[in-house]
C-alpha cells in the first residue's frame, strides 16, 4: 500500500456538526431571517425561503408525519430541485425515518423497482409524476402515504405538502411536540441513495448523519462559501444535496434553484450567483458558448489578444481580468467566479481556459459511497489534471500500486458509507480486510498528497496473454493527440469464449470537423490518426479497430458515459 505524504495545505477552520438536526438548528440561530433558498417559476416569479422558515417547516412536517404513523419508516422523494424537496428530506432524516431520494428521470418501472428495493412506505413527489403516480402506487401496496410537493392546484387527488405543513404547524402550536423528545443517533441509517447504474444493477448506498456531516465538514474545509450559489445539478444526487444544499445551511449561503436545464444561462443572469457546482458537459458548453458568441460578434480576435495580454501582465503580478473580461461575466450573470466540477473527468484545458478569463474551475472527485466527496481542488490548492487533495479526516491510499504508483484508490474515514442496503455480499466485497473502502477507481498520489485518477478497475481490459490495459490511458492518448475527438471509449471486443480480444476505440467526433470533410473521409482520417497514436504505445496496448459514432455516448443523469452499454452499442453506431 502507498499513502500520500504529509499535508502542507492549511485547510479552513470549520466547526463539525453532530448531525443534520444540529445543522438546521445552527443555521436558523446563526442566519435566521436571511434567505437560504430561492426558487424561480416559469413566469420568472422568484420565491425566497429563510433559514428560520426551513427549521420551522421541517418540524411541522415531522409533527404531521410522526402523528400519522410514519416514525421509523422509509420515505421516498422524487422531484426537481425545490425548497419543498429540501423540507421533505430534512424533516424525514431529522425527526422521522429514512429518506430515499429517487431520480425523477427514471422510468416508472425503474422507480417501482427502487421503491420496492428500499422498502419505501411513503412517497413525496412533484406534479410531473402525476400521470404515473396512481400506477406506481398500485404496484407498491406498502406505500401508505403519497404527497404532492408541488404548489397546490385544483387537482387534489393527493394531499399537498402545504396541507401537511399547515396541519403540522397547528399541531405544534397545540403543544404536540412529543416527536422532538429523544436524541438522534448520528450513526443510524438516515438515507438510502441508489447508485446511477454505470456498472450494472443499482445498489442502495446507506449513509448516516455522521457520514454526511463528515463530508460537509470536509467540503467546508476546502471552500469558503460566497453569498450566492446556483444549483443546476439534480438534487437527488449526493454531490448536489450533501455539498451544495447542505453547504448553504452551513455557510449561510443563498442557494438559487435552477428550474430547468432549458434556462441555465437566463437564470444565471437573474440570480447573479458567485459560484456553482457543475459537471464537465455544462462547463464545456459554457466555454464553447463564450467563444461562439465572441465569434458571432466579431470579437474573437479581441478576446484572443486580451487573453494573451492578460496572461502576459499576470506574469509580472498585474491581474486585470475583472476589467478585461467583464463583458463575458455579464453573460453569466456578472458575478460567477467559481465553478466546482465533478462527476466525470474534466479536460484540464477547460480549467486553464476559464482561468484565463478569471473564472476558477475546481475539479473534485467523489463517489456516492463516500457521501460523496473524497478530494478536490480548491482555492487552497489547485492542480489542473488532478482531483486535488483529500479533505481533512478522509484518508486515501493506493492499494497494490504498480511500479508507477498506480493502484486502486481506497478510502477510510467517517464519510464512508455504512454499507449497501440489504446486500451484505456487495458490502463485504467493497471493503478490504482492514476496513478501507475500495472505490474501483485507479489512481496515484503525488506531491502534497495530490490525487490523480488514471482509470477504473472495472473497465480493465485483460488480454488473453495476461497483459492488462487501462482503457482510460488509451482514451487520454487519443483525446490529447487527436484534436477533433470529442468523446471516446476504448474497450475490448469479446471473443466466443468471453475473453477480451480486439482493443477498439469508439469515438464521437467534432461535428464541425465531420461536416467539413464528410463522414466517410472523417472515418479514414480517424483510423490514420489512431495508427499514429499506436506508434507511441506498447505493442500489447495498440488499438486494433477504430470506430466512428454518429451520436454521443449514452450517459447517466449525472452525465457519465454508460460504459457497460458500449460493446453492444459501439458497433451499432460504427
Amino acid at each position, binding site marked *: 500500500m502507498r499513502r500520500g505524504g504529509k499535508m502542507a495545505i492549511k485547510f479552513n477552520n470549520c466547526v463539525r456538526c453532530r448531525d443534520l438536526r444540529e445543522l438546521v438548528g445552527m443555521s436558523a440561530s446563526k442566519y435566521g431571517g436571511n434567505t437560504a433558498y430561492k426558487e424561480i417559476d*416559469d413566469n420568472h416569479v422568484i420565491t425566497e425561503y429563510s433559514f428560520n422558515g426551513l427549521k420551522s417547516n421541517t418540524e411541522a412536517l415531522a409533527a404531521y408525519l410522526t402523528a400519522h404513523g410514519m416514525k421509523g419508516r422509509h420515505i421516498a422523494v422524487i422531484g426537481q430541485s425545490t425548497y419543498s424537496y429540501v423540507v421533505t428530506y430534512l424533516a424525514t432524516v431529522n425527526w422521522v425515518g429514512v429518506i430515499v431520494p429517487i431520480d425523477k428521470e427514471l422510468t416508472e418501472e425503474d422507480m417501482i423497482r427502487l421503491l420496492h428495493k428500499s422498502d419505501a412506505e411513503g412517497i413525496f413527489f412533484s406534479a*410531473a409524476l402525476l400521470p404515473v403516480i396512481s400506477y406506481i402506487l398500485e404496484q407498491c401496496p406498502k406505500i401508505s402515504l403519497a404527497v404532492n410537493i408541488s404548489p397546490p392546484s385544483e387537482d387534489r387527488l393527493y394531499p399537498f405538502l402545504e396541507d401537511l405543513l399547515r396541519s403540522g404547524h397547528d399541531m405544534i402550536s397545540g403543544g404536540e411536540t412529543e416527536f422532538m423528545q429523544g436524541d438522534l443517533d448520528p450513526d443510524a441509517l438516515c438515507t438510502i441513495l441508489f447508485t446511477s447504474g454505470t456498472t450494472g444493477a443499482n445498489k442502495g448506498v446507506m449513509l448516516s448523519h455522521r457520514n454526511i456531516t463528515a463530508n460537509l465538514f470536509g467540503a467546508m474545509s476546502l471552500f469558503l462559501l460566497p453569498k450566492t450559489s446556483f444549483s443546476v445539478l439534480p438534487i437527488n444526487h449526493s454531490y448536489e444535496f450533501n455539498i451544495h444544499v447542505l453547504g448553504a445551511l452551513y455557510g449561510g449561503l443563498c442557494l438559487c434553484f435552477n428550474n*430547468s*436545464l*432549458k*434556462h*441555465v*444561462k*437566463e437564470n444565471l443572469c437573474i440570480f447573479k450567483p458567485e459560484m456553482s457546482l457543475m459537471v464537465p*458537459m*455544462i462547463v464545456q*458548453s459554457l466555454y464553447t458558448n463564450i467563444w*461562439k458568441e465572441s465569434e*458571432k460578434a466579431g470579437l474573437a480576435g479581441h478576446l484572443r489578444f486580451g487573453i494573451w495580454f492578460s496572461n502576459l501582465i499576470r506574469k509580472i503580478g498585474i491581474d486585470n481580468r475583472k476589467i478585461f473580461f467583464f463583458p463575458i461575466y455579464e453573460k453569466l450573470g456578472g458575478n460567477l467566479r467559481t465553478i466546482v466540477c465533478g462527476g466525470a473527468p474534466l479536460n484540464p484545458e477547460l480549467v486553464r481556459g476559464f482561468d484565463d478569463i478569471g473564472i476558477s474551475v475546481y475539479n473534485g472527485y467523489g463517489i456516492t459511497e463516500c457521501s460523496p466527496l473524497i478530494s478536490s481542488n480548491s482555492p487552497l490548492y489547485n492542480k489542473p489534471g488532478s482531483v486535488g487533495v483529500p479533505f481533512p479526516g478522509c484518508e486515501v491510499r493506493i492499494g497494490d500500486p504498480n511500479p508507477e504508483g498506480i493502484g486502486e484508490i481506497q478510502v477510510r474515514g467517517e464519510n464512508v458509507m455504512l454499507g449497501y442496503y440489504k446486500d451484505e455480499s456487495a458490502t463485504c466485497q467493497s471493503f478490504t480486510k482492514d476496513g478501507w473502502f475500495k472505490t474501483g477507481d485507479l489512481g496515484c498520489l503525488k506531491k502534497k498528497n495530490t490525487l490523480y485518477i488514471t482509470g477504473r478497475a472495472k473497465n480493465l481490459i485483460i488480454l488473453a496473454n495476461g497483459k492488462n490495459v487501462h482503457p482510460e490511458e488509451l482514451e487520454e492518448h487519443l483525446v490529447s493527440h487527436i484534436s477533433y475527438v*470529442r468523446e471516446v471509449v476504448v474497450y475490448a471486443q469479446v471473443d466466443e469464449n468471453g475473453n477480451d480480444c480486439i482493443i477498439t476505440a469508439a469515438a*464521437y467526433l*467534432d*461535428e*464541425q470537423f*465531420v*461536416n467539413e470533410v464528410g463522414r466517410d473521409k472523417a472515418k479514414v482520417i480517424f483510423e490514420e490518426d489512431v495508427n499514429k497514436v499506436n506508434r507511441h504505445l506498447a505493442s500489447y496496448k495498440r488499438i486494433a479497430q477504430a470506430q466512428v459514432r*454518429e*451520436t*454521443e455516448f449514452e*450517459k447517466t443523469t449525472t*452525465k457519465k458515459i454508460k460504459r457497460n452499454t458500449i460493446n453492444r452499442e459501439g458497433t451499432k453506431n460504427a
Partner: protein
Amino acid sequence: MLKIIVKDLLDYVDIDESLITEDTRPSTDLHLNSYDYISLVGKLEDDIGIKIDENELRKFVTLGELDAYIQKKMLE
C-alpha cells in the same frame, strides 16, 4: 416555424443553413450534446412563447417532429 428553429439552432452548430431540413436529427446529424439541445429548446420557448415539455422532447428524433409538436401546441 422551422425557420425559427433553424435560426436558433445556428447559435449552437456551425453548419450551412441550407443543409438543415425537417429530416435533420439534432443529435445524430448535428451532434448537439444533450445539454445544448435542451438549451436550444429553452431559447425556442422564449422566441415562440410556448412551453415545451421536457418529457415530450425526448420522443422527437427529427427537427420536423419538433416543428410539428410546436405547431400543435400553438393551436391549443
